[in-house]
């Protein structure tokens, strides 16, 4: 059964310098974070073309959590469980809910934040939530003569179809989450991205308002196989609106959302589209409720 199967060489760098050196010596090796996504693929083992592996598990720089007055900086190898242990006071609510929805404790102990953002053909809810929260991501280029890094917003990590825009030797090293909080935030999720990717939909929405007038409104839908959707036209339309939204206004925005999804040129099932519209309506009704309670 295992004839001709090659045992890949495992490289375990202990520092970022070691990692740069390993990347230059083994350019075809794959980076290994938690391994939950790679190993859950049906063709993972046995396979004849296994690349060498660079395990990122023993690089302290990638496991660091740093907190300043303005933001929280998380290394890409921090596990989802470790991130949740930071506590509700520090993490924004929608991010806490997203992380808890990512899988059971056993999976969360193993999955890392960097790995969850870099899954090849499956977009997880965390991408959308981080995009809505305007988090920044540090990308390190590992094949440059000198280590070269840049910060980008999470939305820029994916193209319009939801595909990862990282080059082969680029890697996420840190994620920076600001402490600015919006007045309203919600995370809604349906379906399991691993079992039913064609049915799963996640919505993260945040909103700020001043004297019942919306000043900031952002939302993002993540569909595991249908990518990553931010609809700036609808966001712009919602800004400046007086709360509460009228039922007609909600229906109009939901209809616009449906049309925008149709025009987005990605494969979205009918169920996902319907769920997305209903989630959006639920979120707007919740926003109405909160604004009315606060009056």
């Amino acid at each position, binding site marked *: 059964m295992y004839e001709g199967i090659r045992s890949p060489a495992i490289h375990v760098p202990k520092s970022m310098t070691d990692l740069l050196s390993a990347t230059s010596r083994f350019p075809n090796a794959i980076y290994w974070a938690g391994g939950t996504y790679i190993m859950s693929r049906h063709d993972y083992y046995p396979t004849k073309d296994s690349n060498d592996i660079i395990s990122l598990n023993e690089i302290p720089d990638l496991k660091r959590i740093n907190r300043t007055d303005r933001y929280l900086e998380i290394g890409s190898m921090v596990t989802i469980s470790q991130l949740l242990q930071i506590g509700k006071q520090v993490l924004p609510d929608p991010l806490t809910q997203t992380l808890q929805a990512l899988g*059971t404790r056993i999976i969360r102990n193993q999955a890392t934040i960097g790995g969850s953002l870099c899954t090849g053909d499956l977009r997880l809810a965390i991408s959308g939530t981080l995009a809505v929260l305007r988090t920044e991501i540090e990308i390190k280029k590992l094949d440059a003569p000198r280590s070269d890094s840049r910060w980008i917003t999470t939305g820029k990590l994916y193209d319009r179809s939801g595909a990862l825009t990282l080059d082969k030797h680029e890697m996420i090293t840190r994620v920076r989450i600001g402490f600015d909080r919006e007045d309203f935030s919600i995370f809604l999720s349906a379906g399991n991205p691993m079992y039913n990717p064609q049915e799963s939909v996640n919505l993260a929405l945040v909103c700020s308002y001043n004297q019942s007038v919306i000043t900031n409104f952002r939302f993002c839908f993540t569909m595991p196989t249908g990518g990553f959707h931010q609809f700036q036209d609808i966001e712009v339309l919602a800004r400046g609106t007086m709360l509460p939204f009228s039922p007609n206004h909600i229906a109009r925005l939901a209809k616009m959302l449906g049309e925008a999804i149709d025009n987005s040129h990605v494969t979205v099932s009918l169920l996902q589209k319907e769920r997305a519209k209903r989630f959006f309506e639920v979120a707007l009704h919740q926003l109405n409720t909160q604004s009315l309670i606060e009056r």
Partner: protein
Amino acid sequence: MKIECTIDGKRILLTVNSNKPLNSILMEDVEQSNFNAKCSDGNCGNCVVLLNDTAVLSCLIPAFRLRNAHVLTFEGYRRTRFWHDIERAYEDAKSHPCPLCHASKTLIFESLLRTIGKTEEKESTDSNLDDEAVVKELGLNRCMCLEANEIIEIFNSAANYRRRRRVRRN
């Protein structure tokens, strides 16, 4: 690749492919192992083992992560005193998981009992366990042989036994 690790208390030297999943290693490379779970994609939840005292899905653990690790399968776990807490809880609730998922569900219960043990020492967002969370955690194993109310009853009963055990020890 040569890997030295401890499986069910026995020190073992394995010669396996570096990326071979732990569930395949337990089935094919470890002698006298009754472990039997071949899912290979983390979706059935039937292959839970304790790796360094933490519950993991063995199909998601590659061989190279096993260096000097302590693996406890259900066979090994049954020889520990902790097993009796869960077994008595099954008796109390008069419901047992089916033979297919018995090992896996028991080890998930065990990992949850360890979590509440830690919660009493340190409060954190990821260690709060209410009834809904317990049912969700057991949902990792996709076998539907236990109802939600049975899962909660078993867990609460096992938690009481475990608490008593800790009190006696202290």
